[in-house]
């Protein structure tokens, strides 16, 4: 029984699960002693007794332990805990939680020790085995999930800006039994703010004529993982207001300000500004942070990084503006660890000179430095949002590094939110996504992933939708947002606030569509050839007509998808030269999913600017000859053609129609 079978069935009983994981403050630990001299224990029962539910109460499962802000590692036994600092084990049967703290001290001496415990509710009462086929691991999901469920909207803006993930609304649980009142009270030991709720979809389906098959827990798909913003309850319901995990990208960077308490001899105008954060190579003006001598200049925030190299330092005469290249050791010294440049030659003291440095930022820990889209995004997530490795889709980041090897220079002095750094399209503000036509998002399970946009597709790996899959299908040819010229701004010189520009123009678009509009793209690219290639790609994307389709799905085949995914559509009649679409590639521009009272999938498709079928890629050693290739392979790869443009001589059907991306 697989989720694909569930989706394909014409009769489905949909069950939505909600797994809520608040934290529970723990105090009153006791040393274990004896055979576990390093460990402490506390009572943590698996049931929350309540008059609201007959019997032992509501089951909760310990799924984590947090020491101040650090998650400890789970171990399978008391002995393992005792042998490993910073670990925990929950003896569920005996209601005991064992920990060994990171320092060995009593957990009560820490600021706070918390257990992360999960409560299980659903739209219908159901027992699911935590481990497939293991009846002993059964967990009852209380049928307390009702009313409004989060409405998921994901969208990509016209292929040119980043994806927007929004998850509006809240989940409402029944509370006529009064169970939630004690748990959400302000004076309870539970903390709900910013704790996670995981929503999953599954259920059962009819196979054949009468057999109802129930999906195992492992086949339930993750709809979304969100965080709790607020909770309230009345005598009937308990409502949790949810926010997307991605809202954390509202965090701003850089982080650390300069104040006299740390830097008693700051230069003029430095106070209150932020320390630079930098990746890749750039020319910047460092901050004068010590005027007690000839001048100490801080290049970057050593709390978050070191430097790979300082290539050169120039002194700028304050009165004349003349630049003088300085000599290492003679005129200045560099400390890559503390990120400072110290002027040692009094000739170039701060009173008369500013500094300009050509610097390469954060190292990669492997002898090089972070300089690609994927590497920098990953480091930003882990450094400034404390995203653990377990929440990074490492395979996707590895692939994105291959797909987008362009050199990136990202140096920040003025504060910007991470969301802006990732995906803004505001003038004069570069973004990582627009630098490489990439997308950064969280998966349905809350894992951070990324990819580089490519209008090509693998027909065998994407969903194919037919006319009968839609209950609404309204095609709308789109005659707006056409540009005949693209300017890509790159390699910003921060010291002089200069932007080189690479331009790509298509006069054919000007003549056909009678437009002369220009699109300006601000990037973190360093290389002119990368910028030129980007300009050409954007010109291809935004220089053509596109068709968009508003749709509503009859079933829920797209329920696992997010905006940016590709689908094939067969539909007739359609606004195509042939009058029909047959396996026409589309991109999900917008996807809206509501879950209650039933799952409904609506959204908007875009036909990849009409170029999806025409993109060719360099073939590799495994690619078959054109004559032996399947339709999907012919759609994905390119072949050498003869002088007539035919991959197979005298075969017009093999004519070269590709666009090299």
């Amino acid at each position, binding site marked *: 029984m697989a989720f694909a079978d569930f989706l394909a069935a014409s009769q489905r009983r949909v069950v939505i699960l909600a797994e809520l994981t608040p934290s529970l403050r723990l105090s009153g630990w006791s040393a274990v002693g004896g055979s576990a001299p390093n460990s402490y224990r506390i009572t943590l029962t698996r049931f929350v007794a309540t008059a609201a539910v007959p019997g032992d109460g509501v089951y909760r499962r310990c799924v984590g332990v947090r020491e101040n802000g650090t998650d400890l590692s789970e171990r399978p036994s008391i002995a393992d805990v005792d042998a490993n600092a910073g670990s925990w084990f929950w003896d569920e049967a005996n209601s005991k939680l064992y920990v060994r703290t990171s320092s060995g001290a009593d957990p009560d001496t820490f600021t706070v020790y918390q257990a992360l415990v999960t409560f299980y509710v659903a739209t219908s009462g159901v027992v699911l085995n935590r481990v497939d086929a293991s009846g*002993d*691991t059964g967990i*009852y999901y209380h*049928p307390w999930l009702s009313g409004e469920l989060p409405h998921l909207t994901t969208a990509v803006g016209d292929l040119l800006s980043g994806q927007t993930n929004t998850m509006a609304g809240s989940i409402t649980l029944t509370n006529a039994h009064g169970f939630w009142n004690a748990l959400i009270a302000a004076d309870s030991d539970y903390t709900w703010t910013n704790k996670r709720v995981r929503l999953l979809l599954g259920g059962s389906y009819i196979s054949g004529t009468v057999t109802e098959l129930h999906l195992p827990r492992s086949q339930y798909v993750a709809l979304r993982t969100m965080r709790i913003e607020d909770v309230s309850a009345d005598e009937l319901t308990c409502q949790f207001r949810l926010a997307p995990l991605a809202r954390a990208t509202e965090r701003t960077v850089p982080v650390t300000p300069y104040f006299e308490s740390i830097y008693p001899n700051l230069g003029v105008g430095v106070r209150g500004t932020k320390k630079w954060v930098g990746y890749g190579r750039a020319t910047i003006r460092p901050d004068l942070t010590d005027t007690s001598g000839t001048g100490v200049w801080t290049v970057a925030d050593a709390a978050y990084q070191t430097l790979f190299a300082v290539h050169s330092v120039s002194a700028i005469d304050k009165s004349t503006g003349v630049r003088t290249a300085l000599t290492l050791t003679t005129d200045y010294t560099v400390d890559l660890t503390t990120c400072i440049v110290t002027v040692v030659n009094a000739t170039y003291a701060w009173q008369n000179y500013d500094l300009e440095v050509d610097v390469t930022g954060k190292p990669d820990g492997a002898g090089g430095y972070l300089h690609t889209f994927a590497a920098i995004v990953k480091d930003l997530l882990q450094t400034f949002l404390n995203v653990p490795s377990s929440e990074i889709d490492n395979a996707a980041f590895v692939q994105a590094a291959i797909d987008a090897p362009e050199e990136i220079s990202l140096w920040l002095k003025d504060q910007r939110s991470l969301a802006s750094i990732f995906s803004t399209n505001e003038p004069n503000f570069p973004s990582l996504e627009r630098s490489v036509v990439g997308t950064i998002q969280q998966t349905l399970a809350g894992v951070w992933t990324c990819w580089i946009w490519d209008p090509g597709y693998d027909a065998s790996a994407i969903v194919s939708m037919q006319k009968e899959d839609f209950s609404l299908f309204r095609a709308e040819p789109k005659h707006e947002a056409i540009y005949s010229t693209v300017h890509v701004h790159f390699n910003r010189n921060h010291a002089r606030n200069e932007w080189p520009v690479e331009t790509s123009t298509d006069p054919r678009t000007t003549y056909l569509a009678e437009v002369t509009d220009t699109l300006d793209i601000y990037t973190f690219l360093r290389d002119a050839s990368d910028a030129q290639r980007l300009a050409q790609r954007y010109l291809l994307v935004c220089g053509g007509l596109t068709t968009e389709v508003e749709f509503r799905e*009859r*079933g829920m085949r797209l329920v696992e998808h997010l905006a940016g995914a590709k689908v094939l559509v067969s539909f007739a009649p359609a606004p195509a030269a042939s009058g029909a679409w047959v396996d026409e590639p589309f991109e999900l521009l917008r996807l809206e999913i509501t879950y209650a009272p039933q799952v409904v999938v609506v959204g908007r498709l875009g036909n990849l600017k009409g170029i999806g079928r025409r993109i060719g890629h360099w073939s590799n050693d495994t690619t078959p000859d054109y004559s032996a290739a399947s339709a999907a392979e012919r759609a994905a790869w390119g072949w050498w053609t003869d002088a007539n443009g035919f991959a197979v001589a005298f075969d017009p059907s093999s004519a070269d129609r590709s666009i090299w991306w």
Partner: protein
Amino acid sequence: MALRLLYNNYLLGQHATITATSEASGLPASAAADPQRTRVWRSLTETGTQALDIDLGVTSNVTCVALANVQLIAGTGSVTLQQRGTGASPGAAVNVATLPWQDPDTRVAMSFFSLQNFRHWRLLWSNDLSANAYAEVGYVFLGAYWEAPVNFSVPSENGFSDLSIPSTSLDGQKDFVTRTGVHTASLRFDAITEQQRSDLRAIYRLVGVRMPIFTALDPSLSWTHWLARFASPISHSFDIAPGRYSLDVSLEEVR
């Protein structure tokens, strides 16, 4: 046979305790006293028999047992109700009744027997195949039934509803979001006595529309054995003959 209502479940008494030969960590024996039928007790996966042991706390008159959502070990065998005496501790087990297999539609198994007056009870799941499997049950009733002295009039309205929701394509193809179907019944009692009226009102006052109760519209027909709720007020009018009432009761199966 007349309508029987099983509304006073001794398992819900404040002194009653339920234990089991084994239980899955998240599905304890105490779940058997939860009228939420989907919340179950489940034994561990083992090769022997499994049992729920019930101590009512006091010696009580018992005339019936009912189980909702029962699962036999490996899908075969039986569940037997046994009494284990009246002492402070349970004694030897003596068979009282072997329950029939639950009705596949209503998912209820019910058994009626002559009055038994004991404190300790056991529900024993056989393991005829010595299978490595588990036993499971949702809601358990143990107590005495109330039987209508004057049965409801026939023919009565009785139905089974499919509340599934269709989703229709442009071309007319349909998908369905399945919802659990429910039995419903509208019963009219004609010319019932003051005592019966009083009994029904007392039962309704106790359980209202809130509390599921086991019902047997016809104790001899297993498809009429439901776990149900009152679905409406019970209403009656004053009739011409004094001390006699016509009373309407609606029932809806608990999903």
